[in-house]
């Protein structure tokens, strides 16, 4: 059960996930292209309903009914296209190849069984031949994350705090030596100190075990803290992606600029923070044509009504916006002139 030599890379191509509603099948994720480079931490940021959690579930081909993956592929090294997997093959891949960590606020443990027993259930499900060894691994992992491993394995969910539960969740995602880990809102509903601890643990464990990590969050701060690369999602599409530093320092897509402009600073006037006007689209009112962000966009043009924004790529970054030009270094053409005052 030696870990593979290198962490797996992931290539998501043209991923479209639709949900069946009384109004027909509506896309929650539409035509997303995203690469997770081996050994990196990628952060996906978006508001509620941006499709980021659906994207995360797609990595395990686990979109829940009434949703389904309608098109596209999720290619994982050593596993192939997950979208094509099913049945036992898919079940074995989950947990063993891809670890999934639930939002801390969710109760991801069976309330009637101790953590240790659930580790054993996990081992039994994946044909682990040495259950004692597995428990020892679990204990070590918990110890590594600053918990009393033996005590936690003997505990029920209700005896653990939010931060402890989240570490147990990370342990369960890693104990079978999965090298690709998806964390869905890992710090939501935790207090600030615990958030910082969990993020430190994510970073450290990622480096120590040589993982490829995907972090889903609505919190740009979390991404700034841990992610090498960042993808901003809006209305089921990737608005902008690139190296975290570059995107945060010099956002190109008007949505990313709006998000950054909405964050209050520690120093300075609270009035400098501006909320984005309007609300994010819901499944039912995502525009079918044109740009999904246009209703809230300060740079709205006529072409935004009809044409899907082109993905403008420059070096390691890309943004999907009509207003972003490739030739002038990827700056929003209009924003250069008028964007700042509007903010």
């Amino acid at each position, binding site marked *: 059960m030696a870990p593979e030599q290198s962490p797996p890379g992931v290539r998501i191509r043209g991923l479209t996930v639709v949900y069946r509603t009384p109004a027909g099948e509506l896309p929650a994720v539409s035509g997303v292209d995203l690469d997770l480079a081996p050994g990196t931490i990628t952060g996906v940021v978006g508001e509620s309903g941006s499709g980021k959690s659906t994207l995360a579930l797609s990595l*395990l081909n*686990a979109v*829940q009914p009434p949703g389904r993956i309608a098109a596209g592929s999720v290619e994982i090294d050593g596993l192939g296209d997950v979208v094509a997997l099913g049945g036992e093959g898919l*079940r*074995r*891949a*989950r*947990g*063993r190849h891809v670890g*999934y960590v*639930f939002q801390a606020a*969710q*109760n*991801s*443990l*069976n*309330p*009637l*069984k*101790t953590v240790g027993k659930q580790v054993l*259930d*996990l081992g*039994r*499900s*994946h044909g682990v031949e040495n259950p004692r060894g597995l428990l020892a691994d679990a204990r070590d992992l918990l110890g590594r994350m600053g918990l009393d491993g033996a005590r936690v394995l003997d505990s*029920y969910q*209700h*005896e653990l705090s939010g931060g402890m539960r989240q570490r147990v*969740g990370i342990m*369960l*995602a890693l104990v079978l030596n999965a090298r690709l880990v998806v964390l869905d809102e890992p710090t939501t509903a935790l207090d600030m100190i615990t958030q910082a601890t969990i993020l430190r643990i994510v970073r450290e464990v990622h480096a120590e075990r040589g993982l490829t990590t995907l972090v889903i969050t609505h919190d740009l701060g979390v991404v700034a803290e841990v992610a090498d690369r960042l993808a901003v999602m809006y209305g089921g599409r990737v608005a902008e992606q690139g190296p975290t530093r570059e995107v945060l320092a010099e956002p190109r897509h008007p949505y990313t600029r709006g998000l950054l402009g909405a964050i209050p600073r520690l120093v300075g006037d609270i009035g400098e923070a501006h909320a984005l006007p309007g609300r994010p689209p819901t499944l039912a009112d995502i525009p079918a044509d044109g740009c999904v962000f246009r209703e809230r966009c300060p740079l709205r043009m006529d072409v935004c009504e009809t044409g899907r924004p082109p993905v403008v790529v420059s070096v390691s970054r890309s943004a999907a916006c009509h207003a972003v030009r490739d030739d002038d270094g990827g700056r929003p053409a209009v924003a250069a002139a008028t964007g700042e005052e509007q903010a």
Partner: protein
Amino acid sequence: MAVLLRRLAGHVARGFVMILVVTTISFLIIRSVPGDPLAARYQKLVEQGMAPDAAQRAVEALYGFTPKGGLWEQYLDYMGGLAHLDLGQSLSVPGAGVSTVLFSAAKWTVIPVLAGTLLSFLVGVVMGVYAAIKRTGVLGDLLAISGSLLHGVPQYVLALLLGAIFTTLVPILPAGGTADIMIDPGFTADYIGSLVQHATLPVVTYALAGYGGWILAMKSSVVTVLGDDFILAAELRGMKRSIVFRYLARNAILPLFTILALSLGLLFGGAIFIERIFNYPGLGLMLIDSINNRDYSLMGGAFLLITTAVVVANIAADLLYTVIDPRVRSGGEAA
């Protein structure tokens, strides 16, 4: 263990007080019912032409006692007897103690109702899980509808219906009684076969009457647990279907155990309609008879038995929960 014992001690104390209160209330209610069985007997003998004196003596000889004193003294007398587990003399079955009458009736109630309840519990729970998992399919719908339907039909209608079908239309089962009177009671295959044959209709009626409630309760419980995060979490961790199913079933059945324990307590109340329809001499039938006969002491005894059973079942349900749900267990420790 200490938690368990402390809980048990508290429950027993509360249960004891509860039984005391109910006994007192039922004593008062029974005493305020109009009518006097001894006077009625005396009246009857006089009407039959017996001299008043002789009638008085005959009544005394028959029952072996005449009530003396006021209400308060009778109450103290009664409670004193209860303290010695003496439920008194039956008035309608001369010469027999209340406990004897109760126990001979109890076996005709407890065994069939227990069998029917457990049968409906098992079938209902299994079908409920199935109906929940297949809730979007036709079969799931049919199961749920069968549950609602059976749950909505009163017990006595079911009993009459089954009776009409299996004793008249397709006469394959006996219409009433506990066993064929032509067969000598004993530990013989004939007698036991006859017992089973006679018990079939009541048991099936109990089972059908209970089944609807169980399937509906289990279905909704399973659907609730299916929506819980830990089920999806277990699936995303690649847990085997059988293990996920066990997580689901164990969590879903938890609330039903309470209902089961409570319904087992009520089982001593007897199933008045069903026992009447199938002429089955259980506690329900006995209770009706005792009321018709103004048999105060038997009524009191029956109420006491029902109260005790319900209180004991409550305690059992709570202790059972302590054993099967770790949250309740440590909740007691933390508090």
